[in-house]
């Protein structure tokens, strides 16, 4: 007596309806829209501005001389002025060590009243600025001593694709895809579980895979404006252009989004409370935040753990994004990265489907 008559009718297609429901729910929640779209942009803006250009614009050096020989201090100051970046402060206060450790100055030079005694350089070895300041000061002093030395020509690399912001934008994109996929799916899933909504849909003939797929698909759809915003923003504000092909970039983004959607589902597949799932999310995300090359290259980590780092989905995604955006890499070059993403996403989704707790 029950012949499935309208099963193919698009109007009641379950996957379509499920995706529509997710999209509607999302768009009708202004706060959610802000957190998904506004927040990442704010982060990009803040970080992008902070790291926009990183020439060493100023090198701060404190000079502290004996009061009976102001001429020696002046002499040194003149030599240091040969480096336009150097900013000298004459210090008489006794708190110079504190100024150094607090980062208020990069280097302190103590000038002895006895000309036969050496200058005393005080640096803070843990701060790169301090080391740089020492080199700059040494160089400036030497040039002052030997004014006839051959000048050295300096050029700097400032072509597009090699600045820090160029490194940062793809990393932020990867980070957004990860946190969006994980939070977007994990949170929504657990929330539906606590509302007993999952149990309710399970009591219908709905296909479980349709339900989980709809979560991933709607996540991908939310991702599109997010990605577009970030890339447009990167292009107009910081001149980060996409060197590679746009369809390939979209493929990488879609695979990244789907991959983390799958991982998000897996994380949320058993969790009963929002607290549990938040903890699990952080457990998964934090290590990747650090090692997967968002803010700095993952190559900085020891060789021994590189295989692990390279196998992580965020590393694969970030490398693929950078390859396409910055180097214009083609499909073949990023294929290994895509395989890593596909494996993580596919296996996570399959396991999630298997162990998913519906109530």
């Amino acid at each position: 007596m029950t012949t499935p008559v309208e099963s193919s009718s698009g109007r009641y297609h379950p996957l379509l309806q499920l995706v529509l429901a997710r999209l509607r729910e999302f768009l009708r929640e202004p706060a959610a829209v802000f957190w998904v779209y506004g927040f990442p942009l704010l982060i990009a803006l803040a970080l992008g501005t902070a790291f926009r250009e990183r020439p060493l614009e100023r090198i701060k050096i404190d000079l502290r001389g004996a009061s009976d020989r102001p001429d020696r201090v002046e002499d040194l100051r003149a030599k240091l002025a040969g480096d336009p970046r150097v900013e000298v402060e004459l210090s008489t206060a006794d708190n110079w060590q504190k100024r150094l450790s607090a980062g208020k100055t990069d280097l302190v030079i103590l000038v002895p009243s006895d000309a036969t005694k050496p200058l005393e350089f005080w640096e803070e070895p843990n701060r790169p600025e301090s080391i740089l300041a020492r080199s700059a000061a040494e160089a400036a002093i030497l040039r002052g001593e030997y004014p006839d030395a051959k000048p050295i020509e300096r050029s700097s690399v400032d072509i597009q694709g090699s600045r820090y912001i160029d490194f940062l934008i793809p990393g932020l994109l990867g980070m957004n895809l990860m946190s969006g996929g994980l939070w977007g799916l994990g949170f929504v899933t657990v929330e539906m579980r606590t509302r007993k909504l999952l149990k309710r849909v399970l009591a219908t003939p709905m296909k479980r895979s349709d339900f989980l797929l709809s979560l991933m698909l709607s996540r991908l759809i939310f991702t599109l404006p997010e990605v577009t915003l970030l890339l447009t923003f990167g292009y107009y504000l910081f001149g980060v252009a996409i060197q590679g092909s746009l369809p390939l970039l979209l493929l990488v983004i879609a695979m990244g989004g789907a991959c983390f959607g799958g991982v998000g589902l897996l994380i949320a597949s058993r969790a009963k409370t929002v607290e549990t799932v938040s903890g699990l999310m952080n457990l998964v995300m934090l290590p990747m935040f650090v090692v997967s090359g968002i803010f700095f290259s993952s190559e900085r980590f020891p060789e021994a753990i590189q295989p692990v780092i390279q196998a992580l989905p965020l590393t694969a995604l970030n490398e693929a994004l950078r390859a396409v955006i910055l180097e214009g890499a083609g499909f073949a070059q990023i294929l290994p990265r895509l395989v890593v993403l596909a494996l993580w996403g596919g296996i996570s989704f399959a396991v999630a489907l298997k162990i998913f707790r519906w109530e």
Partner: protein
Amino acid sequence: MQTAIRCTALTKRYNTRPPVEAVRGIDLEIAVGECFGLLGPNGAGKTTTMEILEGLLKATSGEVEILGLRWGRDDAEIRRRIGISLQETRLADKLTVLETVTLFRSFYPSGMTPMEAIEKVSLQEKAKSYVVRLSGGQRQRLSVACALAGDPELLFLDEPTTGLDPQSRRQLWEIIEGFKAAGRTVFLTTHYMDEAEKLCDRVAVVDRGLVIALGTPAALIASIGGEHLIDFSLLQKSHDLSDDRLRRVETVETVSREADRISLAVRQPHLALPSLVGLLANDGYALADLTIRHATLEDVFVRLTGRNLRDTPETSA
């Protein structure tokens, strides 16, 4: 007669610490077209039993047959043919009534249009409202509309009117009666006796995981000895009016007491009442108050268990 639901020797044990035996051996057989009520206090095992029948929980042991089909073998077909309203499902807040029903409708290969389902529960005027804006009664009706969307032959309703105001309850009763009138089967749980009496052809009273009484509401009420109850209390708070003495009242079947109140189940109140008044006058007692009422399933429950339905049950044993 066709059987809609059959279960035999159903048990469910939760392996918590300590283990909980929520259902301890339940047999039921419900015919197509019947409205069957599972009745009992909170924690009696009603919801567990229902969720096993709905295929949402696995029984620890026992057999279940739904519309002649079996869970584990014919899941997809059973799900197509039944409709379910769970206790306390919170549907998505920011979807409209129509969108919600359309979503549920999309899960079924056939059924009524979403608007038809909405009309069945009289929510047409709210079709475009967000779920979050609905009252408790309207949400419950929406939940029933979602259950009806696939045009089910068998409807499961878990405490459909708990927490609703009297008017909303009556509206839901009408919906259920309409479904029943179409020859469909309804299986509901409730802890409201009046609901069971109003809607159900038969009820099973469940307590601590067992069926302790089964039959039509009228038969169950008759089983306590009389359909009428005389409840009274005396001005004298301390007295030694014995049950034996009260059994001399004409046509009395049983005597029960709760605190100061005495309750007599009688067959013929017009004979029992003068007899009682005479007896009290003779013994020197004065009435503080007296009411005569029809016995209800509540009285059945009290008689069977010695507890009120609203009492917290000790199910953790």
